[in-house]
Each structure stands twice: as C-alpha cells, then as structure tokens.
C-alpha cells in the first residue's frame, strides 16, 4: 500500500495543504521543526484507521480555528489498483473509500486493508523516531525485547515482564514462599495463630466452665448431701435428746411390768384382796347362820298352818257382796221402813177408795174401774150433772114434792154394805195378786165382783102428779141421767148415786181420781222400794244358800253374814300371812344360798388364782400378788404420766423402735450427744467450706462466661480463614496468571522471534555491511546477542557495543518486526523520524541502502529537518524529497 497523494483541508497546522504526487521509493519529508512532520504521520494514520479520538473537540488535530478536520488521500494497492479515502470529523466522524467501481462508506472504521494490524501497533511500530534509537539503556533494551519480540508493539500493551513483576509483587504481598516481608497471608496467619490460641483458650475455657459446672454440681450435691447429713445429724441429736427421756421412762415402765409379770390372769383379783378374803369368809359364815334360822322358821310354819273352811272360802268369795250388803244395811233398813209406810199409805188410800167406792159403786171398789174413772170427762160430766141437777132439781122439786110424799115412805140401807163388801173383797183380791198369791187374790176378786154384781140399784117412782111431771121430769132426768149413765157407763155406780147423780158424784169422782193418783204414787213408791230391796234380797239369799246359813230376816241375816265374814277374813289373813312369810323366807333362802355360793365361789376363785403365784400360803401369795400389783400400778401410773406428758407417745415409741432397729441401744447417752454435736459442728464446717468453694466456683463461672466465646472466635477465625483462602487463592491466581503470561510471552516469542531475528540478522548484516550477520536471544539471561562475522563470536548487545551498533541492531529488529507482522498482507507505509541523523557516513550509506531497498517493497517516509541530510538524500536514486 502506497500513498500517491495526500491532502489536508484541515488537519492541525496543515490547512489546505496538498502534497505533490508521491512517487515510488523513499519519500523524504523535509521541514523544520514544528513544520508538521509528525502531523503528516498522524494524517496518514488517520486516513488508514479513522479518527481517534472520534470527537472533534477532543481530537488533537482539530484546527485551532475550529474548522472540521478533513483529509483526503489517494492510495495505491500492492497490485496497482488505486482508491481514494476521504475522512472528515464533524459532529461525528465520517469516511469514504472511493474506488473505481464504488464508494464505500467507512464511517470511522479502518480501511479493510489494515484490519490485520491494530491501529496502536501501527502507530507504535511503523513510526520510528531517533529517540528510540538513542537510548540503549538496559531498561530500553528490556522494552525493546518486549516490543520487538514480546509482541508488545503498542503502548497500550504493557510489558509482560512488568506485568509479571507486578503480579509477583502483588502475589508476594499476599503470600510468600519465604519468610520475608509481611504479606497479607502471613498477617492473617499470625492473626489466625493468635485466634487459634484464643480459640483453644476459649475451648479450654468452655471445658473449664463445664468442669467448673460439674465441680459446682458436685459441690451442690455435696452441699445437699451435707445439708441432709446436717439435718439428719441435728435430727438425730434432737431425736436423741427428745427420745432419750421417753425411752428411759419406757424402759423403767417395761422393767416394772416385767417385775409385775403377767397379771392378766390375776385380773379378777381385787386390789384389796387382803381385806376381801376375810370379808368373804365372814360373809359366808353370816349367810350360813341366817340360812339356818330361816330353816327353823319354815319348819315352824309348816307344822301348824291356818286353814279356811268351805263356808269361809264361800264367805270370802262373797266378800264383796257381803260388804255391799253390810254397807246397804241401813239403807235396806230405811227402805223396809219406808215400804211399811208406803204400804200403810196404800192401804189407807185403798181404804179410802173402798170407803168412797162403797157408796159410789156397786160392789165397792174395784181396780178395774180405774181406767173408766180416768176416762170420764169431768167437764162433760159436770155439764151433764148440771143438766141433770137442773132436771133433777126440777124433778126434786117435784120429787120433793113427790118424796115429800114418798120420803117418808122408804129409806134403803143394804146397798152400802154391799159396796163395802165389794170393796173389801176386791181389795183383798188385789192385795193377794200383788203379793204373789194369785189364786187367793182371784178368789177374792170374784167374790167381790159377785158381790158387786149382786148389787142393783133401783129407782123410786114419782108421785103421780107429780109423777107425770116427775115422769116427764124423770124422763128428762132419765135422759139426763142416761147421758150421765152413758157417760159413766163403764162404772158400776151404785144406783143410789147414779139414780140421782149430783155434783157430789163429780166431786167423788174427783176425789176418787185424787185417791187413785195418790195410790198410784204409793204403789209406784212401793214398787220402787221393792225393786231396791229385791236385788239385795236375792244376793242375800244366794250368799246364805252358799254359806249354808239359815236365814232369819233381812237385816239379821246381813248382820250374821257380816260377822261371819269378819271372822273368815281374819282367818284368811292368818293364812295369807303365813304364806307370805313362807314366800319371804323362801326368797331370802334363795338369795342367801346364791350369795353364799357366789361368795364361796369367789373365795375359791381368789384362792385358786393366788395359788398359781406359788407361795407357801395364801397369805404369802397375797403378799407377793400385792407386791407385783403395786409394781404394775406404778408402771401404769408412769405410763399415764408419760402419755399425759407426751400426747403423741405412739409416734415417739415408733421412732424409738425404729432407732433401736437401727441399732440404738440407748447407752452412753452423754457421749452420744457430745459426739452428735461434734459431728453437727463438723458438717456445719464442711457446709461453710462447700459454700466457700461454691462461691468461688460461681465467681469463676461468671468470670469464665465473660471470657471470649468459642463461636465468636470461630466466626472470626472462619472470617479470617475465608479471607486467607481468598488471599491464597488470589495469590495462586496471580501466580498462575504470571505463569500464563510468562508462557504466553514465551510462546509468542517462540512463534515470532526466529523469523524476526532471522530477518533482523539480514537487516543488520546489510546495515553493518557484514560486520554482524546474526542476532540471537539468550532466553535464560534475557539478553540479545549479535554475531560478529569477524570474530565468529556472539557479543551481547549491551554496553560493550557502540551506540551506533546498538541503534543499528534496533533498527534491524524494528524493520524485521514490521516485515514479520505484515507477513502476506499489504505492506503499510513506514515512517522514520531522523533515524539516520546520528549515523556515520558508512553506516548512513548502508542504512540508506536498507531504506531504499525497503521502499521498493513498501512506502517509506523519512522525516528530517536537517538540510545536509536532505541534500544528501536528494542526490540518491529512488528518493523523492517533499517539503512541508
């Protein structure tokens, strides 16, 4: 690729600048300093690669006046084709490539023909300045090596060795194989070492805490055990002190009981047996005596016993009745007397009846008249009698007249006697009937009735004149009389009274009625009295019959019975008394016999029980018994006191029994108490010690828990280990990267160095006219060697060589590198800035030869500001000098 023409419409200081047509061969650009030689290089580079930077404001070749950078170039390719390139930098970069056939928009892209080579490499490798040749220092050589053989042609690639050095330094700052310095890993390791120690200490602390806790638990157990022991000891002491007096007394009681022995079988023996036995013996004797006396008395009673007769028994059987009769004696006596009186009154009334009836009735009195008498209506009768009387009076008047006449004629007397007889007989009959003589009574009554029946009344005729009147009157009287008779028809009125009834009839009837009334009353009274007497009489008769008593009269019989009864009673009392005494004696005997048996039995019982004691005599047995009894009672009294003093004695006894089962023998009490107190004090001391230890342990535990935590340290360690791992990994990565870089560098060199060195050898041989014909690289020493044809030796490209030789070597290498880079691609234009200026004439000629030869294959621009060089070169063939 060759530039045929260049045009800068605006590019840095080049403005509306246009080169002349550029020919083949070496192109020498001449111009003073700051004339724009390097500007031209950048212009060509921009034509090939575009605008960098692509910003007008930032681009260093934007004209001061502010015009848009604008460049154009005409380029001929290797095969001869020509195209032009136009690039502008306005608001954005633009570029076109114009060939014969077409216009290709490039934008800001490089020309397709330069794509094989990065812009930076082109910029750095294809432009060689004199300064680059003039600093053959080791550093420059190292850079040279990297640049020429390490493929770090461009400034954007940092020297591999530098990078490797940095990597190593960085890696060493992280970790080192030796002990030098203070890499991070070492710092971390140091920290970790401390942390491990702290972790170990923390683990130990934890273990210690567990140990302390276990120890504390043990002490707590000991404390609990000691406390329990103390409680037990105190309890034991307290129990001993509490139980010992009780046990002592219980033992005393037991001893007394033991001495007393088993008194259960003597439980029946009274406490005062010494008195009881003589008393019993006395009792037995007394009772026996009494029994004897009873026997005597019973014998007496059984020899002459009083006996009641049959009658006496009967009397005693009727004792109540007799007493009742006796009690009724005066009453009966009064009743009998009253009966006499009543009977007398009755008899008197009957007499009066008879007397009145004698005149009134035919045949006298008859009790059968009584109902008729009672039936008579006195008022009617009075009225009738009044009527009759009136008639009679009229008749009487007449009669008087007539009787006057006749009265004198007759006067009757037999009628009255008949009435009296009737009444008398009737009365006797009734009397007999009443007094149980029926037959006799009936006879008398029949006789009376016959007498009464034989009575007939008659009337006296009236006188004639008067008789008529009298008859009329008599008729009237008769009528009246008939009425009266009719009225009195049931009664056998005497004719006398009925023939001439008058008021007396009524009066007599009234009197009769009165007497009857009185008689009824008397009879009633008599009846009542008789009724009263009758029961008693019946009893009296019965008693008398049963007692075979002959009766005299009522009252005397009673008196007799009273006396007999009294006697029987007295006798009976004797009998009863005798019986009662017998019974009493019998009962007394039974009681005495029982008592005697009981006493004897009791006595025998006591004696037999006491005999078991085994004494020689009863008295001795009693003595022994009493003595044992006393011991028992003493034990009981002590026991009672014990119970009173110790209400819960059973519990205490259980405790005592328990202790005895545990081996307590209650001996050496004081010593035991002393020992127990001593033990309690020892335990107390032990507890104090345990508490002291516990306090210390608790304090240690609290302090221990304040120590660093294992997990905290583990976390920190893990963090640091992570960081260490990171650092180590980073270091390994850096070293690996370093190794990779070294390997890559080696490979790159392996790939490129032989060709470059071969090419460089040729260039150097040409430049040095055969003085040095080969260049080689000593990998181990990282040194460049040149082969001297003359000496046949390799000479290290270093201070031993002249500066000129070193510049030639460099140039040879640079040119070889360019050639190597391009390989089969289009050779790109090369730029040399004053590179020949320091060369001597001989080498200048050789160098120029190289450049002109080089220019045959590629376009070579040589910038110079030196006139002599311009003039020198202008004379040479294939050299075109362009002024700028």
């Amino acid at each position, binding site marked *: 690729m060759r530039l045929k023409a260049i045009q800068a419409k605006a590019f840095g200081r080049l403005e509306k600048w246009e080169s002349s047509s550029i020919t083949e061969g070496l192109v020498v650009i001449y111009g003073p300093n700051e004339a724009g030689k390097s500007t031209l290089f950048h212009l060509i580079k921009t034509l090939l690669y575009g605008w960098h930077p692509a910003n007008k404001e930032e681009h260093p070749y934007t004209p001061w006046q502010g015009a848009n950078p604008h460049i154009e170039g005409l380029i001929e390719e290797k095969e001869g084709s020509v195209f032009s390139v136009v690039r502008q930098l306005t608001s954005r970069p633009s570029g076109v490539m114009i060939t014969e056939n077409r216009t290709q928009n490039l934008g800001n892209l490089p020309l397709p023909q330069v794509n094989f080579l990065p812009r930076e490499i082109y910029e750095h490798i294809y432009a060689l300045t004199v300064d680059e040749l003039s600093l053959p220092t080791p550093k420059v050589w190292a850079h040279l090596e990297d640049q020429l053989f390490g493929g770090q042609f461009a400034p954007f*690639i940092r020297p591999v060795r530098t990078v490797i050095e940095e990597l190593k330094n960085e890696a060493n700052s992280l970790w080192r194989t030796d002990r030098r310095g203070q890499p991070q890993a070492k710092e971390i390791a140091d920290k970790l070492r401390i942390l491990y120690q702290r972790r170990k200490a923390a683990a130990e602390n934890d273990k210690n805490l567990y140990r302390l806790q276990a120890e504390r638990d043990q002490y707590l157990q000991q404390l609990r055990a000691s406390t329990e022991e103390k409680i037990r000891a105190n309890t034991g002491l307290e129990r001993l002190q509490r139980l010992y007096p009780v046990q002592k007394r219980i033992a005393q009681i037991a001893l007394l009981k033991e001495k007393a022995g088993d008194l259960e079988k003597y439980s029946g023996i009274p406490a005062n047996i010494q008195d009881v036995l003589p008393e019993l013996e006395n009792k037995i004797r007394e009772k026996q005596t009494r029994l004897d006396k009873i026997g005597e008395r019973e014998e007496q009673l059984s020899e002459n016993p009083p006996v009641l007769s049959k009658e006496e028994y009967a009397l005693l059987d009727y004792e109540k009745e007799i007493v009742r009769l006796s009690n009724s004696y005066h009453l009966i006596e009064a009743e009998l007397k009253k009966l006499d009186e009543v009977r007398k009154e009755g008899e008197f009334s009957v007499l009066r009846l008879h007397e009145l009836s004698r005149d009134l009735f035919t045949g006298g009195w008859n009790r059968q008249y009584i109902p008729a008498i009672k039936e008579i209506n006195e008022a009617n009768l009075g009225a009738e009698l009044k009527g009759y009387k009136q008639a009679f009076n009229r008749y009487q008047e007449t009669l008087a007249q007539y009787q006057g006449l006749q009265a004198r004629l007759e006067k009757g007397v037999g009628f009255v006697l008949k009435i009296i007889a009737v009444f008398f007989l009737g009365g006797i009959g009734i009397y007999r009937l009443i007094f149980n003589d029926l037959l006799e009574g009936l006879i008398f009554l029949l006789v009376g009735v016959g007498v009464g029946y034989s009575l007939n009344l008659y009337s006296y005729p009236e006188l004639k004149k008067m008789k008529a009147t009298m008859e009329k009157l008599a008729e009237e009287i008769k009528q009246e009389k008939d009425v009266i008779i009719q009225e009195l028809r049931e009664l056998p009125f005497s004719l006398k009274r009925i023939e001439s009834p008058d008021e007396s009839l009524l009066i007599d009837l009234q009197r009769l009625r009165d007497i009857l009334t009185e008689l009824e009353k008397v009879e009633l009274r008599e009846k009542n009295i008789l009724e009263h007497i009758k029961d008693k009489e019946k009893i009296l008769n019965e008693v008398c019959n049963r007692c075979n008593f002959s009766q005299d009269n009522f009252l005397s019989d009673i008196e007799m019975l009273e006396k007999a009864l009294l006697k029987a009673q007295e006798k009976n009392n004797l009998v009863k008394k005798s019986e009662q005494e017998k019974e009493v004696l019998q009962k007394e005997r039974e009681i005495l016999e029982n008592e005697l048996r009981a006493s004897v039995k009791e006595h025998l019982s006591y004696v037999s029980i006491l005999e078991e004691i085994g004494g020689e005599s009863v008295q001795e047995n009693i003595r022994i018994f009493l003595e044992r009894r006393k011991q028992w009672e003493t034990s009981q009294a002590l026991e009672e006191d014990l119970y009173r003093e110790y209400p819960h004695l059973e519990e205490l006894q259980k405790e005592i029994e328990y202790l005895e089962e545990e081996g307590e023998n209650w001996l050496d009490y004081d010593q035991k108490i002393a020992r127990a107190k001593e033990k309690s004090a020892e335990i107390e001391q032990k507890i104090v010690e345990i508490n002291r230890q516990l306090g210390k342990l608790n304090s240690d535990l609290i302090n221990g828990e304040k120590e660093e935590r294992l997990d905290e340290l583990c976390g920190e360690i893990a963090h640091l280990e992570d960081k260490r791992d990171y650092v180590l990994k980073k270091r*390994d990565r850096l070293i690996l990267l370093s190794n990779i870089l070294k390997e890559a560098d080696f*490979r790159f060199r392996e790939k490129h160095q032989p060709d470059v060195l071969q090419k460089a050898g040729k260039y150097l041989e040409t430049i040095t006219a055969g003085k040095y014909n080969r260049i080689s690289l000593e990998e181990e020493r990282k040194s460049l060697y040149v082969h001297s044809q003359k000496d046949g030796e390799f000479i290290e490209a270093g201070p031993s060589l002249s500066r000129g030789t070193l510049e030639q070597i460099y140039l040879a290498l640079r040119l070889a590198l360019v050639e190597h880079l391009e390989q089969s691609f289009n050779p790109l234009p090369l730029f040399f800035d004053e590179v020949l200026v320091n060369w001597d004439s001989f080498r200048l000629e050789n160098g120029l030869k190289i450049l002109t030869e080089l220019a045959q294959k590629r376009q070579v621009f040589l910038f110079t500001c030196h006139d002599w060089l311009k003039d020198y070169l202008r004379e040479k063939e294939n050299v075109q000098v362009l002024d700028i």
Partner: protein
Amino acid sequence: MSLRFLHLADVHLDTPFQNKEPHERQLLREALRRAFQEAISLAINHQVDALLIAGDLFDNETLSFSTEKYLLQQLEKLHQVGIRVFYTPGNHDPYGSNYRLSRIPWPANVHIYKQADPETVSLKDDQGEVKAYIVGAGHEGSREKRNLAQEFPQAEGDIPFIGVLHTYVGGYQEIGEHERYAPCSVRDLLAKNYAYWALGHIHQGQVVHEDPFVVYAGSLMGRNIREEGIKGAYLVEIEGKNVVQAKFIPLASVCWLQVTLADLANITQLKELEKRIKDTLSEIVAGYAGLALFIRLLLKGPCPLYYELADEVNIATLAEEVALSLELSHLEISAEGILRPLCIADYQDKPHVVSTVLELITKLKEDDELLANLAPSPLAKSGVNNGQDELTYLRKLLTDLEPEVVARLVEVKKR
C-alpha cells in the same frame, strides 16, 4: 382429634458467624438466640402439642457453655407448660458418646432419637389418649450416609404418623450446596403414608410435597449470604390424619440478601453509583420492613469506575453511606465483578501477546497437563495436594481470568 405442632430445624445455635465486624457477629448471635426464643414463645402461645426439631439444633463443636445453659432454659419453659419436644439429631449434632449432645442434661420433656434405627413414640393428650405417633431417627455420626427413611415403619390405623428426620431428599431442585447426608427420595417418604414429614438439613425452607406434606422447615435464621430470605418454622395443624394447615411463620429478625447490580457502563461518578445503589436497594428493603438486613451487593460488568472501585476505601465509604442511609444492619459491596470497559474480543486473534495470553487461557481450560505445568509452585492454598483437587482448584482460578489479564496487560490511561 386435632394435633398442633411446631416444626423447626437447622437452628445451628452458636454457629460461627463469619462477618468481619465483631458487633455484627454479636448481633447475629443474639438474633439467632432471639429467633429460637420466638419459636419457644410461639409454641407456648399456640399451645402446641409438640415441638419437632429435625436436627442441627446446634453446631457441635462451638456450642458454648452459656448457650447450652440458654438452650436448656428455653426447653425448660416448654417443660413447664407440658409441651413435649421431639428431637432428631443431624450431622452437626449427632448423638454419640463422642458428641456434645449426649452429654447435655436434657429436661424430661425432650425426647431424643438417639439411633439411626427409627423409633416410634406416642404423643398422648391429658387423658392419656394417643394423638399421634412421632417417628424419628437420629444421626449417630457426623457423616451418616445411609438411607434412614427407608427403615421407617409403615403408618397404620387412624392415628396420624409424623416423621421427623434430618435428611437430604434427592430428586428435586434444591437451593444451595449440601452434603448428601442420610439421603432418601420423596418416593421413600411418600411410601410410608405419613401425615407429615418434618425434615431438616436443607436450609432453604420449602414444601417438597403436598398431600401428604413433606416439608423442610429451613434454617431458623440465615447464617450467611448463602442462606438468603426470611427464615422461620412451620406451624402445623392436623385434624384426624389430614394436615389442615402447614403455615410458615417467620421468626428470624435477620434476613440475608444478595443483590446484583449490573449495567454500570455509564456510571462515571461514585456519587452517581451511590444513588443507583440506593435506588435499587431501597425498593428491595421496603419488602423486608422490620428485619435487620444483611445485604451483599455484587457490582458486576464494565464500569468506568473500575479503578475507583478497586480502592477498598472507596468501597467501604460507599457501603457505609448506603447502609446508613437505608438503615441496613450490614452492607457488603463487592466490586470484584467490575470490569474495565474493555472488549475482550478486541484483543483476540491479534498479532500481539495479549491475544496469545487469551488463546493460552482458553487452551488451559481444556488442557489439564498444560494447566498443571503452569500451576504455581508451591501453591499458597493448602490442602490441594491431590492431583485432581489441584486441577479443580486451578480451573477455578482460571474463572474470569481473561478480563483480568487484559486489564493488566492493556495500558489504559487512568482518568
């Protein structure tokens, strides 16, 4: 008959928190204790029948004296209200004479499944009626590799069976790296016909299967950035043999979150970056009100602030500013993912050593021999002496090496 229990696991009491700052470690330690205390209070307040702990109650080696005391005090609270505790040891707290667990004087209400052979324990009510059978098995060592679930008895009858186990259930997507201790499959568990499987070991709480329920309670509190999100326990109610509710109850007052912030190519000022971080985090923080947030912010991708962010002082200042502004308990900003604004492709297949390096790195990823040849000797990292381990380690070192090597080799003028 209803049954209520609290299922928790992976408490990891006295876990060594790896935070740099001591006060943060203390905060996390106290928060973990508080979370456990919350669990105890929850159990008491909800009058649960039982507390099920599916292993890893504590980190065996680091359980401190004081924490052991604290633990026993908390369990004693349950004892006082008659709540039973069923505890199956896990790989961190195995039961055995050499381990701490066997030496702790547990309260009487705590039943520990001491052997790998499953044990069935009746859970009875006040009247002595069996409410459930709690079947569990414990790890006897710290590396239990057997399938313990297979040996669990088959559920029978009307009484619900509850399985408690510290196990790795394979065959589903898990989050985080876990050793395959006591491995089993979901099928193993389902085959037992249990009403509920209370599992531990996986620290990300999750319902592995519903009907029947197979549940990982997850860790009680996140211990590091790998245990992100809200943590707690499951409150479970069973009626008859059916789970009527398995409710996750947040208990931890601390929440770990990892946030990635990329697309920083246009950020040219630290203040601008601070604002971007605040804006991003404030939206996230709003969703975790009341929780102490421990956030790791990963800055990734090319950023013009590459050099500024390489300065630890700048990072620390930035983290402090943001944490203070958003009241975060902890904010760690990692700028390791920040790249210089370079395009790797620009340096590939070019005639310079950078390209050669990139080619070599690509080759190293496949060429173990070459990698072994280039390995640092000696390695700073210990414990990778075994050839395979070393290769694995070296391969990890190659991760994202290209941007770094380009950044180191390519000279970019610092702004």
